[in-house]
């Protein structure tokens, strides 16, 4: 089959227990933009069990056609079943490119698809566009965001993963119409991957936070986290942390901001007692407003801050809490 026969942009609609991951809607928004430029279509691949009712959501957010694979075998994420089922959809749709969320699930699945199709895959793209020659170009940061590489793919379909909150979803439009196509899947009973149980755990989704109060090694001991938590509570904020606090088991990894933690983009980021290493700033530098509190006026975080308060956090934070309480009248 010739490469020209591939057209349209396909989004993998990640869902867990019937809830669509919001990165899916953002990807549909981007796929619309790309498809309009190319005069082609937007496809969504919806895999799961009893998920058919979610198709219309995907259409409202920009899909022209939804391929649905509904099978009990896809009830929970089994990478082997998901891979085989997704390959069937790709085979049917023959898209020019496939977009997937750079979530843990997306990153587990995408490379297997790439290997099965012997096609290129670009990780963590921050932008996707069509160049003058009509090539699909993927932009990704490298070396802690010091550079951006523009990457093209010789094979089709091209594949890219994109982090949550990189793109904007288009407005939901319930009058949008689209097609739904069912794809049959009957995989093996035993794939070699057996889900034994889902472990309930309260996970902090720091990437969703509008306001983050982050703290680093400026904190002297674990008990002192209390003042940071108090401040966060007053602001309805999520607590963030630099890596040393996570390594010392003061706080769980869900809270870690940075290269080996989470990339965040809140409206307001308050960095308290954090020096601003490249591994930390790569995770927060795209935040809206950045406020830092640090006793060292030369801390590198200053370069990433809109407002830099020189002071001892043990004086500044309690006073700040007091002032906020006053202001709130509590």
């Amino acid at each position: 089959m010739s490469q020209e026969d591939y057209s349209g942009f396909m989004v993998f609609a990640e869902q867990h227990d019937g809830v669509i991951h919001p990165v899916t809607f953002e990807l549909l928004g981007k796929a619309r933009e790309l498809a309009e430029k190319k005069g082609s279509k937007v496809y969504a691949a919806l895999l799961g069990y009893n998920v058919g009712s979610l198709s219309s959501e995907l259409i409202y957010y920009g899909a022209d056609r939804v391929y649905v694979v509904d099978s009990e075998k896809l009830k929970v994420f089994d990478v082997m079943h998901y891979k085989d089922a997704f390959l069937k959809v790709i085979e049917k749709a023959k898209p020019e490119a496939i977009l997937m969320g750079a979530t843990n699930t997306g990153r587990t699945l995408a490379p297997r698809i790439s290997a099965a199709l012997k096609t290129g895959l670009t990780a963590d793209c921050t932008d996707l566009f069509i160049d003058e020659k009509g090539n699909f170009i993927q932009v990704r940061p490298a070396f802690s965001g010091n550079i951006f590489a523009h990457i093209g793919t010789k094979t089709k379909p091209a594949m890219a993963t994109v982090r949550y909150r990189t793109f904007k979803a288009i407005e939901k439009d319930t009058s949008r119409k689209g097609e739904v196509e069912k794809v049959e899947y009957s995989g093996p009973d035993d794939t070699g991957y057996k889900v034994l149980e889902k472990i309930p755990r309260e996970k902090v989704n720091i990437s969703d936070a509008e306001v983050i109060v982050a703290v680093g090694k400026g904190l002297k001991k674990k008990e002192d986290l209390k003042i940071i938590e108090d401040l966060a509570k007053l602001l309805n904020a999520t607590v963030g942390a630099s890596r040393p606090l996570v390594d010392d088991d003061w706080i769980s990894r869900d809270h870690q901001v940075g290269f080996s933690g989470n990339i965040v983009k809140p409206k307001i980021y308050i960095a308290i007692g954090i020096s601003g290493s490249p591994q930390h700033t790569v995770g927060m530098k795209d935040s809206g407003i950045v406020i830092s509190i640090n006793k060292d006026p030369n801390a590198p975080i200053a370069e990433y801050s809109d407002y830099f308060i020189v002071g001892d956090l043990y004086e500044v934070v309690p006073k700040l809490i007091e002032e906020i309480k006053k202001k709130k009248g509590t």
Partner: protein
Amino acid sequence: MDDAIMEGSFKIVVLMKPVPDMEKVKFNVEKGTIERESSELVINPFDLHALEVAAQIKEKVNGTVTTISMAPPHAADALKESIARGSDRAILLSDRKFGGADTLATAYALASAIRKLGIPDLIVAGEKSVDGDTAQVPPLVAEMLGIPHASYVSKVIDIKEKAIEVITEQEAPYRVELRLPALIQVTKEVAKPRVPTLKDKLKAKKYEIEVWSADKLSDVANPDFFGLKGSPTWVSKIIVPKPKPRSKQVFNAEEGIKKIIEILSKEGVI
């Protein structure tokens, strides 16, 4: 030594990537490249966790650990450290033909070397590299070898004769059982790297890393899939971004608190 993996009941392969030492490396901001001379290579820090969990399993079930790396020849020095940290055998794939590989071509070379050795019971890889940072190579290798895998493995619960039970962090943690042979891609929570003893260090110092060229894999691989030639992705350009402009206003404590209150009110937070 024989090309077949060393004798021992349970065979483990660990994928170890040599990377520039990111704490020391100098960066050419104009060109968007790393100044290679500015930094020696070290083992990707994430991979030390992979090796540690492999060494712990090996010690428990009386197995062997072989590490495989693909990198330029001067990586050999850094890789000796893997011997001090519990590996029995270290193989370095090094050849100009492997150069310029994207993740697909990297995985192809690694998977070919694994085929050459015979697929082991377990393959362990790191979460991601500190330079390329895609986290893609391990699942690619698993697919090429046709074996199940789990990514984001934060804990190995049990190792059985034909299966391994692990926790994989997806949108929530899941306890899963993988049929062996399998690949696990581990996070740093999985195990804390050991501090090598003096004796281990001495042993490592004397160890000669095996270097394999592309020809060595000719019976198990198609050389067209190696390196730049086998890489479907191509870099069209490198852009050095301008950082997001910040107003960088500096305040003392007292003025600063006032300012914070002002911003928080303006933004509707308080």
